[in-house]
C-alpha cells in the first residue's frame, strides 16, 4: 500500500469518543426506522449514550459524542444540510448547553432522570426556536408545543431511567470521574 502523506495518530481519548459516538449513531439510525406520527416526536435513544458519557467522562466528551452523532447520523440518513439536520443540530446544541449547566445540580437530589428531562425539553426548545425563526415564520408552530412537551417528558424519563440503570449495573464509574 502506498504510504499516506497524512499521518493521523488517534489518541486513546479519540478512540473512546469514536466508540461512544458509534453507539449513539447506531441508536439514532435504528430509531429512524420506527414510524412516528409527527415529525420531531421521537424517543431520542442516542441521548442515553450522551447521558452516560456526561456522567462517566464529563461534559467535553458528551459534546463531542453529541455533535458527532448529529453529523454522522444525518450523513448516513442522507439528511446532511437538509432542514431536519439543522433542526437536530439546534436541538443538540441547546440540550448539550443545558446539560453543561444542569450537571452542576446537587447529585444527591437530582439524578439522571432530571438531567434527561431537562435535556429533552432543551432539545425541543432549540428545535422550535429554529423552526419558528427560519422554517415556519408563524406562531402556528407553537400549536404543537403541548405534544412536544408531553413527548419530551415521557421519553426524557424513560431515557434517564435506562441511562441511570446502565450506569449502576453495567458501567463502573471510577473514583474521580465525578470531579470533572
Amino acid at each position, binding site marked *: 500500500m502506498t504510504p499516506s502523506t497524512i499521518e493521523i495518530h488517534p489518541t486513546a481519548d479519540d478512540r473512546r469518543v469514536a466508540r461512544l459516538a458509534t453507539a449513539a449513531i447506531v441508536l439514532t439510525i435504528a430509531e429512524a426506522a420506527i414510524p412516528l406520527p409527527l415529525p420531531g416526536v421521537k424517543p431520542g435513544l442516542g441521548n442515553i449514550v450522551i447521558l452516560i458519557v456526561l456522567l462517566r467522562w464529563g461534559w467535553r466528551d458528551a459534546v463531542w459524542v453529541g455533535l458527532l452523532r448529529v453529523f454522522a447520523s444525518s450523513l448516513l440518513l442522507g439528511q446532511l444540510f437538509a432542514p431536519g439536520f439543522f433542526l437536530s443540530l439546534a436541538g443538540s446544541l441547546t440540550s448539550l448547553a443545558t446539560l453543561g449547566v444542569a450537571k452542576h*445540580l*446537587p447529585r*444527591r*437530589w*437530582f*439524578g*439522571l*432522570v*432530571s438531567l434527561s*428531562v*431537562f435535556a429533552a*425539553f432543551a432539545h425541543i426548545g432549540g428545535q422550535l426556536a429554529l423552526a419558528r425563526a427560519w422554517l415556519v415564520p408563524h406562531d402556528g408552530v*407553537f*400549536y404543537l*408545543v*403541548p405534544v412536544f*412537551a*408531553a413527548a*419530551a*417528558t415521557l421519553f*426524557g*424519563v424513560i431515557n*434517564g*431511567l435506562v441511562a*441511570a*440503570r446502565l450506569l*449502576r449495573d453495567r458501567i463502573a464509574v471510577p473514583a474521580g470521574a465525578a470531579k470533572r
Partner: protein
Amino acid sequence: MNPRLADWLALLRPGDFATLAGALAVCVVSALLLWRGGAPDKAIVRAGGAVFAELSLAQPQRVDVPGPLGITRIEVEPGRARVLSDPGPRQYCVRQGWLSRAGAVAICAPNEVSLSLSGGAADYDSLNY
C-alpha cells in the same frame, strides 16, 4: 410493591420527582394556553344581512328573530347554541343541531337568518357561497 418496579423507582432521587412535576405542569399549562382556540365566546345572530343580536354563551336564553317567512327561534346554552325552530321548508339549519366550536355557522337561508359562533381562533377565516 412489585420488586422490579421498585428497582426502577430506586433510580429516582427526590429532585427528580420535582422535575417530573414541573415537566407535567409545562405540558398541562401549554395545552390549556395554546389549545383553547376552539371554544367560542359568543353567538352572533344575523337577520337580512345585518347583525340582529350578539348573545353571550354564558347563560341559557332564547331569542326570536323575525324574518320574511316568520319567526326563527335561537336557543343558547352555556358554551353552545342552536336554531330551535325555523319556518323554512327544508329545516337544514335546525337539523344541524348544537353548534359548539368557534367559527361554526347555521344558515336559515329562506328566512334570511344565520347563527354563527365567534371565538379567539376560528376554524375558518370566511365562508363564501
